[in-house]
């Protein structure tokens, strides 16, 4: 039987995940070198790793290219893949929020038509649908805060960590959609076929949190 494969989200989540895994005896020195290898390995523990873009991690896990993955709740809510979400890793904490100029609060309540800019069209659509609103949703690739400032959209739905970018640009949080943090996700078939190994790993990670 081959070892388990874990998909990590590139960036800060990856280094936080690695230090979490080191706590339970899974190491990967190569991760800290400037290697060009795409798939890295802890041969002793029989675990392979690869780094992927956040939005792609759920896809790798759903199709079983990785048995497990670490990814933000925001991505899970947006991608809606058929995978198990087994642990809140409690890091990468922030929140999904609706933000805009202070007068946006009136607008959200007024029932008037408005435009929303976001990287998360699915989350935005669901949030407003629950409030029986169907604004026009514009999907952007980044720098979402720019949209209300230049008049592209009335409000935005985006991740807010400290809120300093918003503040500097005269924007405020109008409502919180949901809290966000890193989650451990598992491929459904792997969870069944390799139940013992994976439950053991989840237990060890869970108790080290």
């Amino acid at each position, binding site marked *: *039987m081959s070892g388990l494969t874990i998909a990590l989200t590139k960036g800060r989540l990856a280094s936080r995940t690695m230090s979490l895994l080191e706590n339970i005896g899974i190491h990967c020195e190569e991760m800290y070198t400037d290697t060009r290898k795409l798939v890295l390995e802890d041969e002793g523990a029989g675990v392979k790793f690869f780094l992927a873009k956040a939005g792609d991690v759920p896809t790798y896990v*759903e*199709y*079983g290219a990785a048995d497990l993955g670490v990814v933000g709740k925001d991505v899970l809510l947006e991608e809606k893949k*058929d*995978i*198990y*979400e*087994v*642990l*809140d890793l409690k890091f990468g904490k922030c929140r999904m929020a609706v933000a805009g100029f202070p007068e946006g609060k009136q607008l959200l309540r007024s029932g008037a038509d408005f435009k929303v800019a976001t990287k998360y069209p699915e989350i935005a659509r669901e949030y407003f649908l629950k409030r029986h609103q169907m604004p026009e949703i514009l999907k952007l690739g980044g720098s979402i805060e720019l949209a209300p400032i230049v008049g592209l959209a009335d409000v935005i739905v985006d991740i807010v960590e400290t809120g300093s970018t918003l503040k500097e640009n005269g924007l405020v949080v109008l409502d919180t959609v949901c809290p966000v943090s890193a*989650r451990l996700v*598992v*491929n*459904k*078939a792997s*969870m*069944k*076929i*390799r*139940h013992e190994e994976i*439950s053991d790993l989840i237990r060890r990670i869970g108790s080290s949190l």
Partner: protein
Amino acid sequence: MSDQLYTPYGFRDILFDEAAALGWIQEKLRSVFARFGYRHVETPLVEYLDVFSAERGSVAPRDMYKFIDREGDLLVLRPDMTPALARMVSLYFREADLPIRVTSSGSTFRYNSRYSAKQRQLRQTGIELYGHASSFEDAEVLCAAVHSLKALNLSDHRITIGHARLVSDLMQALKVPADQQDEWSREIESKNVFSLEQKDMQCAFTEDQAKMLSLVTEAGDRSLLTEGYDLAKRLQAEELAKDFGWLLEVDYYLQAYQVQEDVLFDPGMKPELTYYTGVIFKGYVLGAAEPVLDGGRYDALLYQVGSSFDAVGFGFYEDRLLEAVKAQKIVTEQEAFTLVTGADPGQVIRTADCLREKGELVMAIPGLDQQQAEHYAATHQCARIVMTGQEGQVEA
């Protein structure tokens, strides 16, 4: 080449090697099912829409291929084998004929893309056992599923078993408000322990209630079921205890079949289709991203079509088995052809006929030289070349 024609979206051609592997899979499954006493039947590809109407609990009506015939009746391309087979047995059999074991193969059609990445034609082979609801029957069907996976030489496989009513009985026992039940069952199904812990805190559950809620997100063997049964009894949740009790009985028979290593009980499983009333199960195999088999007990479905039979059954998704067979590099039987060639067409025909008589699989192509013949043989599954009009034969 602008006037080339392609297959419609969601449908595909299957060429030689894949078709041979698919045939091999079907043959293996059929021989296992025959060993358990299941007899082959066929139902038409087209049925009246009524057979699959919403109250039957099959595939959602909007996911079906529907059309109208000349008489003005609404027809569907069957989206699911089970209701069609239920229609058939209720038409031809009586109580005295029970138990009845049938196996059937064929394609089903669904618009729903969730069932497979893009495919809308799903090839299925499965069995149905019509009788009187019993855990003995459930275990037999499950055992046939395990034996099938073994007959295909697939390694790393597991069948997970749950109960269609368990999660809703649990929510009854925990008094979850009706409007929140969907969300709860989704989170139980996706094993989202974290979110359930939060709900536990909000609802101020007792220790036993909280234990029960975390138990259904786990998967395990007999001991998990016993624990669930005891907890349900302590919570005075009789229906829930009955569900665990039934699964314990199934496990008892699975032990007699000695297949308990190949199964895993997953109490939080959600029924794929709403006609399931008892045991439900799915089969997973390394190399296939989605479950390769899907089945369960569906006692109420036959009452709806005027029969008092209870039933349990499952279907293998052949395309997903094929995916796993390819991923695990399982050796399937492949034909080996003999290429017969030579300058004289008459002699080619005589030689080819003679070999066919002996049972060889022959491709006859006159006029190839040695080099052409070798090239053709290498690319067309020919293990042997016979050059007529020459001394001896050439082995490829």
